[in-house]
């Protein structure tokens, strides 16, 4: 009993303080991956069954809606391309480098409940698809989190609302920079170290600033919901709500930032750059 407790405490300290155990954990998680799949299976069956049972009218309606949305997005993309080219030209004039161009991979969230005290989800792509620790994860609307553990078949994503997570952001309206830290419980983000006279209003959009070199710059993160002045707090209390549908998304995007040569390839050779976003 003493030995078991000593082992457990030793493991706890080792796991908390350092990352030597990550390889062990990754190997063990390959072993238990079938369990995760087994738990995911019923939910997946229910989903496929529901898909099969949708009738023709619904499918037609969905198809029409998607077609309209596609047309709208394409129209916006035309503008976006010319704007991007113009932006690059202006940046060239200024002599600053700026990387756009990312490759994305769609992964599916497994319906597995991980430990309730942490905000983390498991996705069905791992190192065999090139996923790496620290990789940014998005959903259709905004930044969701980053990969913290991988094994060959699956990986664990820490959401931006976890208490251990913080990411550098800026206000889209005026570029005020801050750090958005997760609060752990509930759904909010808190902006740290905002001086009392900073220009932040309710409704401001926060985007990634790219300062931490983890998240590519310019992706939406959250919208400011409360701005409060507390007399006992030397900083302003700013709470924001994530734009990503953290609890409802089914599919997520894993993002690779491309280096400049690969970007050129991705932009010119359309055939080889499957899944590449310009």
């Amino acid at each position, binding site marked *: *009993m003493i030995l*078991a*407790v000593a*082992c*457990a*405490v*030793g*493991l*706890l300290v*080792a*796991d*908390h303080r350092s990352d030597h*155990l990550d390889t062990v*954990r990754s190997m*063990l*998680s390959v*072993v*238990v991956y079938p*369990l*995760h799949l*087994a*738990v995911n299976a019923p*939910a997946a069956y229910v989903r496929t069954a529901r898909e099969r049972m949708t009738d023709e009218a619904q499918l037609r309606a969905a198809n029409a809606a998607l077609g309209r949305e596609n047309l709208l997005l394409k129209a916006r993309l035309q503008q976006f391309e010319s704007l991007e080219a113009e932006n690059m030209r202006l940046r060239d004039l200024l002599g600053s480098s700026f990387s756009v161009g990312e490759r994305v991979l769609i992964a599916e969230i497994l*319906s*597995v*409940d*991980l*430990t*309730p*005290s*942490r905000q*983390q989800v*498991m996705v069905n792509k791992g190192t065999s698809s090139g996923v790496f620790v620290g990789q940014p994860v998005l959903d259709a609307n905004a930044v969701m989190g980053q990969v913290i*553990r991988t094994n060959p078949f699956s990986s*664990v994503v820490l959401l931006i609302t976890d*208490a*251990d997570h913080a990411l550098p952001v800026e206000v889209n309206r005026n570029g005020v920079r801050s750090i958005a830290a997760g*609060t*752990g*419980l509930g759904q909010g983000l808190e902006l740290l170290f905002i001086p009392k006279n900073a220009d932040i209003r309710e409704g401001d959009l926060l985007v990634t600033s790219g300062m931490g070199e983890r998240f590519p710059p310019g992706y939406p993160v959250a919208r400011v919901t409360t701005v409060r002045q507390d007399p006992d707090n030397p900083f302003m209390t700013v709470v924001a709500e994530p734009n990503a549908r953290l*609890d409802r998304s089914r599919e997520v995007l894993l993002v690779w930032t491309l280096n400049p040569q690969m970007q050129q390839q991705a932009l010119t050779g359309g055939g080889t750059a499957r899944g590449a976003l310009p």
Partner: protein
Amino acid sequence: MSDARARGGWLIPCSLLLAMLLMILPMPAGADALRPQWVALMTLYWCLTVPERYGVFSAFAAGLALDVISGSLFGQHALGLSVIAYAAVELHQRVRIFPLWQQALFAVMLLLVERLINLWVLGATGQPMPSLVYWAPTCLSLLLWPWLSVIMNDIGRRVGLI
């Protein structure tokens, strides 16, 4: 004894596996916090019924497996489970002759200890403190224990384990 040892031994890992599946099974949003401590319940049951085959180190292994599956810190569940397994194995002779409801109370006491150790680990590693709902699964386990005990006794007798 050696003959009995060979029979029905698969039931223990199987039941633990089932308990672990139940621990990570997705639940509706509201019921999520009320998930009973399946693995701890199963560990207690085996420690009280067959302490010569399932002891502190089996509980430790089960805890580690649970840590890997649920993505918590290494040793978080292993610590709590080995402590309650020790207490259960020490006291199993006394507890076995208790009536069912008294056994359930005993089990709940140990489950509370396990929860407390878990909470201590969460606090010591600087993770956010859960709200009072954190203790609700233990109360649910009080209701579950008699059922679990009766059902597992039945299955155990059928496969010749007990």
